[in-house]
């Protein structure tokens, strides 16, 4: 077993304040996580992978579905005796996974959705559902998904044809460019 450039857990701690060593593997997080069954590795398992400190296991985490499925519902950290902020770890690992281009194939749609969402905000400053859906479809090629929803939403007045725009769009674009990694 090779050691992780142990600076990944150090970095995790520096950026999120989460010290994975504190987890004593009680499993309470997984016991309460609504998605544990759908994940490839339940939350306590993810933390344990990081605790081992090996490069292989870090990669397993970065390539996992789990990091993309996690809903940040905070059930786990809310009950964790050691107050391990798993959602923060998930955020960190998602960011890292994209950076290293290791994201799970199974998470393609989820990532596409996040990207479309952010694009949408970047250009309008607001969420614009039609833009979001169009973007999402273009990215995933799920062209027919939710087609039935749209007309009904429209008649219920839930879809706008034109996006609201933040007036200071310059400001929003700057925020995006300054936070871009």
């Amino acid at each position: 077993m090779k050691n992780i450039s142990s600076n990944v857990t150090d970095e995790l701690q520096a950026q999120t304040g989460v010290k994975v060593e504190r987890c004593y593997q009680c499993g309470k997080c997984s016991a309460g996580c609504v998605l544990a069954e759908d994940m490839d590795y339940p939350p306590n398992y993810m933390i344990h992978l990081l605790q081992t400190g090996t490069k292989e296991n870090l990669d397993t985490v970065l390539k996992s579905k789990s990091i993309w499925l996690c809903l940040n519902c905070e059930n786990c950290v809310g009950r964790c005796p050691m107050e391990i902020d798993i959602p923060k770890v998930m955020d960190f690992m998602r960011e890292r996974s994209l950076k290293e281009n290791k994201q799970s194939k199974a998470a393609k749609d989820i990532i596409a959705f996040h990207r479309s969402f952010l694009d949408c905000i970047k250009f309008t400053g607001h969420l614009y559902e039609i833009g979001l859906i169009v973007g999402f479809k273009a990215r995933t090629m799920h062209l027919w998904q939710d087609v039935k929803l749209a007309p009904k939403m429209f008649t219920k007045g839930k879809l706008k044809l034109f996006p609201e725009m933040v007036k200071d769009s310059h400001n929003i674009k700057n925020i995006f460019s300054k936070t871009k990694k």
Partner: protein
Amino acid sequence: MKIGFYPGCSLEGTSREYNESVLALGNALDIEFEEIKDWNCCGATAAHSVNKELSLSLPARVLALAERQNFSEIVVPCAACYNRLTTTQYELAQDEEKKKRISEIIEMPYDGSVRILNVLQMLQKYAVDSIAQKVTNPFKHSVACYYGCLLVRPHKILQFDRVEDPQSMDTLMSAIGANTLDWAFKTECCGGGLSVSRTDIVSKLSGNLLKDAKDRGAEAIIVACPMCHSNLDMRRPEINKYLGEDIEIPVLYITQAIGLALGLEPEKLGIKRHFVNVNLI
């Protein structure tokens, strides 16, 4: 008395009826709202899923704008926005460095002094004592109050209600005559932001909670979050398919339920905009 108002994106689109009912109720209770000028999206789940700094900057801009308008208090009806804004405020309060950096990114001074209220807190603060007297049509139904995850967690940051088995919505609903049920999924997640990308998961999670509410005799589910609402309402066909049964329990925003009890026009509360027919009136 004027309170700052941050509708957030959902209230402009998918959850127009939430916006309508908050405003209508505010009107009936003499709460005056003023919208934050030129607000932007809080970034929701997407931003913090993929970019930490962005996820702090977007809410910080909103808070900075509120400060610019001298609001001491703002109401944020959307639970997701409320959670993002409060978390951002908390995180920046913990870390001067970060605060400086974010202020630089958003190109605005940011202090972090605005008090952020969700709708339940607003009602608790301004209406809970007087509401019972104003009721004209008691809401005589058995309801399951559904808080979802974003209103109560993380408790350390939000400091709102009890984490498990919260009570604030139940208290308000009891005040307008409802029979609030003790059920098991008050704060379990509905599937949140996976609505579009993993509809299967949303169907399952929302389905499980809907089923529990039904089993315990709920006639309506009361929510205070647009995401919960759209998952439970708009995704009903998928949910019912997952459950293999047809559940037709309507989902109401707390502001709609209270509005109805106070005798406001259903029309004005946006009741018609729901996918699942509200058959209680």
